[in-house]
């Protein structure tokens, strides 16, 4: 067993070394978020999205109004030929004065995930739509929110 392990370790070391060699001479796998697109305006990763706004509102019941925010798309830079999953999470929405924070249960994005089965470079996802449920205790004012986009191979 020890011999096998020693051989494996030597092999591993070589394979890692070889991998470096190959990566330096062949096309590396690229898979990253390239742009965030809000109503045809493109933003870089982690940039603010100043044109995000409330598109309309719907009375869900006597205690809830649902606000639909601007739709968002994600553009990818990839050379992957295998399916890619793009996930969006409405992280938070807080009053700029800190006097009211939305409960995460009242923040949602539909759909939360897109799977791109046949990816290509600069592929753009369908729209992610953020929604906010406004309750009677919501304080009126300016709010700061954030959406987290996550990319992964399948």
């Amino acid at each position: 067993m020890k011999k096998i392990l020693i051989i494996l370790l030597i092999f591993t070391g070589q394979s890692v070394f070889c991998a470096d060699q190959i990566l330096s001479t062949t096309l590396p796998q690229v898979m990253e978020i390239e742009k965030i697109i809000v109503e045809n305006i493109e933003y870089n990763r982690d940039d603010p999205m100043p044109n995000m706004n409330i598109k309309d509102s719907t009375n869900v019941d006597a205690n809830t109004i649902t606000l639909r925010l601007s739709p968002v798309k994600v553009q990818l830079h990839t050379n992957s030929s295998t399916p890619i999953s793009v996930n969006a999470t409405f992280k938070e929405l807080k009053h700029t004065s800190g006097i009211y924070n939305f409960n995460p249960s009242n923040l949602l994005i539909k759909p939360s995930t897109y799977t791109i089965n046949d990816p290509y470079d600069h592929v753009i996802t369908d729209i992610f739509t953020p929604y906010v449920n406004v309750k009677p205790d919501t304080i009126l004012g300016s709010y700061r929110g954030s959406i987290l986009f996550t990319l992964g191979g399948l």
Partner: protein
Amino acid sequence: MKKLLIFILVFLICPLAFGTPQTSLNSFEIPIDAVPPGTDNSTNSKHSNGLSDGAVTAITLGSVFGGLSAIGGLGWYLTKHNSGLACGCACGVKTPLKPIFLKDFCTDFSKNKALEKAFALIDKSENKKYLFITDMKIKEKSYNTVIFEIPQNMPNFKIIQVAEGQLNSKLIVSNTEIPVKTNLNNKVIIKQGKIPETKEQNAALVIENYKTEQIYAIIIEFSPS
């Protein structure tokens, strides 16, 4: 030794089996002091059927915006002019309250001490109509709304407001606050004004509370010009 072998194998296989996820955290700012009136899909909103012995039916934000949208942009007025205040109770949103003659008024002052104080200050006349808002609690940093029918041929109004602390009340017609003359009479605020000619059938009384929770009562006295 076997465990070490498995660990090394897993270490080798993992990067090939799973792609490295990449993330982007994008922030934004939105004002929720400009909520457009909602499309009213609610089916269980409570509403009042006009003034019933001064009773006020409390309903909540969803119905407020839905109902307010029906009276011409008042929802927009409220959301724009009440920044920093939470929406509290509202009444008359589905069916506006109706001012009544004094002979139709009947209430128990034992549970409405603030209203009793206001009632003592109205000019009691058979030719006038009155809107009674019985003793109500208003939460801190919130506003209440009362939607009511504007009585025909009675454009003059007097608001008699009794509260434990400071409250601001204003009468809104056609998205515009009606100017008033204000007098303070032994901690009772009396406001007088005249509703201009309008095609609107309804108006709103908005009561704003920037201080702590308190109880208040209001009577609006309408009279012919």
